[in-house]
């Protein structure tokens, strides 16, 4: 039986079939359930059928937020124009903005972690506190966050920052510590300054691992973003999902969830390719 054999090479067809098998099973099970539930109750909204999903996607991508703009206004526009004003697009823009702010704020965290690892005074000053801060469950002290950052845009970005940066700082710190001390000594012997060693010896070689760590933290980042948008907001992908839950709008929620998964996959892929391109010598990830 070759299933439990380390030294086998599945054929091309086997690879292709096996890797899509679970997708196919999932899709079949879904539509089987949908069909069964609709036979019992034609108005079922919990497991929408293909037609309902299609209508949901069309509505999400082609018509503006129902409560805000009158439908007549968008009648004459081109398909692209309609997509541009659709709720899917406006929500994506709003969430992406917050996402990229949050992502951008992770880079100072990398620098902090690096400095903590290299310069002992930095390390002494920050390490204990950040180790503690890392264990605080940000979502449980929301009222304090509201006092400090209000409940508008700033608080949503800060929730991401508080949730994800300690991990990144500590990870960078550990990676920095992991650089063999001989290399630092070598750098100094060759006449490098303190900053040369920090940025050109250490940072340079931990950078691909740091990028990887940020990439692996994209999902927590997204979770905090969604939590923030579900707490209080006027737009965004999670805002829409929270609203649609109020009346079982699963025909739009499911496309939204798949859309978010697709976007996350794209960001992940981009970061992976970028990392490969920037650091062709790095072979771990």
């Amino acid at each position: 039986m070759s299933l439990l054999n380390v030294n086998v090479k599945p054929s091309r067809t086997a690879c292709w079939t096996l890797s899509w098998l679970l997708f196919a099973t999932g899709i079949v099970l879904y539509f089987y359930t949908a069909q069964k539930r609709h036979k019992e109750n034609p108005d079922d909204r919990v497991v929408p059928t293909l037609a309902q999903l299609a209508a949901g996607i069309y509505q999400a991508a082609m018509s503006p937020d129902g409560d805000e703009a009158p439908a007549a206004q968008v009648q004459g526009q081109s398909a692209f124009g309609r997509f541009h004003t659709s709720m899917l697009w406006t929500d994506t823009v709003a969430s992406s903005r917050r996402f990229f702010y949050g992502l951008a704020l992770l880079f100072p965290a990398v620098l902090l972690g690096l400095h903590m690892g290299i310069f002992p005074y930095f390390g002494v000053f920050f390490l204990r506190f950040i180790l503690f801060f890392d264990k605080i469950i940000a979502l449980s002290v929301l009222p304090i966050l509201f006092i400090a950052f209000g409940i508008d845009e700033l608080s949503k970005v800060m929730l991401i920052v508080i949730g994800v940066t300690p991990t990144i700082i500590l990870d960078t710190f550990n990676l920095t510590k992991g650089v063999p001390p001989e290399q630092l000594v070598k750098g100094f012997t060759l006449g490098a300054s303190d900053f040369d060693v920090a940025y050109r010896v250490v940072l340079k070689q931990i950078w691909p691992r740091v990028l990887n760590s940020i990439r692996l933290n994209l999902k927590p980042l997204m979770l905090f973003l969604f939590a923030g948008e579900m707490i209080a907001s006027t737009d965004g992908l999670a805002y829409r999902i929270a609203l649609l839950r109020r009346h079982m709008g699963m025909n739009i929620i499911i496309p939204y969830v798949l859309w978010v998964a697709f976007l996350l996959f794209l960001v992940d892929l981009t970061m992976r390719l970028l990392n490969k391109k920037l650091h062709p010598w790095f072979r771990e990830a």
Partner: protein
Amino acid sequence: MVYRRIGIATGVLVALLGAASVAPLAADKPAFTVGWSVYVGWNPYYYMNKSGIMKKWADKYGISIKVQRFDYAPSLDAFVAKNIEACAMTNMEALDMPAAAGIDTTAMIVGDYSNGNDAVLTRNGVKLKDLPGKKLLLVEKTVSQYLFERGMALNGLESQIKQVRLVNTSDSDIAAAFLSDKSHEAVVTWKPLVSQISKQPGVTNIFNSSQIPGEILDLTVIRTDVLNRADGSGQKFAKALAGAWYETMALMSGKGPAADKVLAAIAEGSQDSLESYKEQLSTTHLLYTPQAALQLSTSPELKQKMTLVKQFCFNHALLGENTKSIDDVAIRYPDASVEGKPGRVRLRFETVYMQMASQGKL
């Protein structure tokens, strides 16, 4: 070697599955679940379960009833997904969740109406007419939004409703969000959050549900297909629920230390104090007797008020995006009149159980 281990593992698994499937067979009584969430008018379910009143009635009818606490939204999800047979919800959600999702639903107990529990609160002396252009914190598409729009309409501000910028805020954080962020001047929410927010100096209550009495009803609903089960067990379930409900109501409406003890036990269900619970009761018009509930359920005003609620749901696409006509989700009233298309009745007001309770026939 490997195969033998797999064999053993499979054997264990099969044994476990076998044991799991045998267990439910042991209980041969029909089992039902009623879901409730924390709210003044539904907390009695906690007491019914804890004091054994529910068990007593279930035993009387030879069935078993599980009383399960949920968060509000998940309780609705569970009811719509047919995981539970009965659930406590408002008239609005009964219409826009199960009824609009094609689950034929029967309202069997009209428990109370909000008589000040839901309120629009503002700081800095902001009035309803000042709200256009300002941000308003609330849980969108719920009775909060209904209350706000009714307030605007009653004050001749209907045309300006769309200029108010609604901020959808989770009910678990809304009090903290409003209290700690002074840049937001208005909020719509319900008790006990309203009580907490009102304690802040400078906060005023500018519109509340006592100005629209009887429009926000709190019901116990049951799936119609459960009621119609051929073996009659659904009917028994409804009778047991009604019996337990009105026995508890009678205990609650008493005077003196005995009633206080019951109320304190109910308050405990939501980690609340007797004092706070009594304060919430003061703005809840509980229909303690089946007679009072019957009177409300059969009054012509019920129809007018349900029409308002249904219109709101339709305007906000809560009856489903594909519901082209407001008559596609029809309501049947106790006098057998139907509002909407007769073939599409999804919500029924049924008085028979309250009737039996009032005649002592349960």
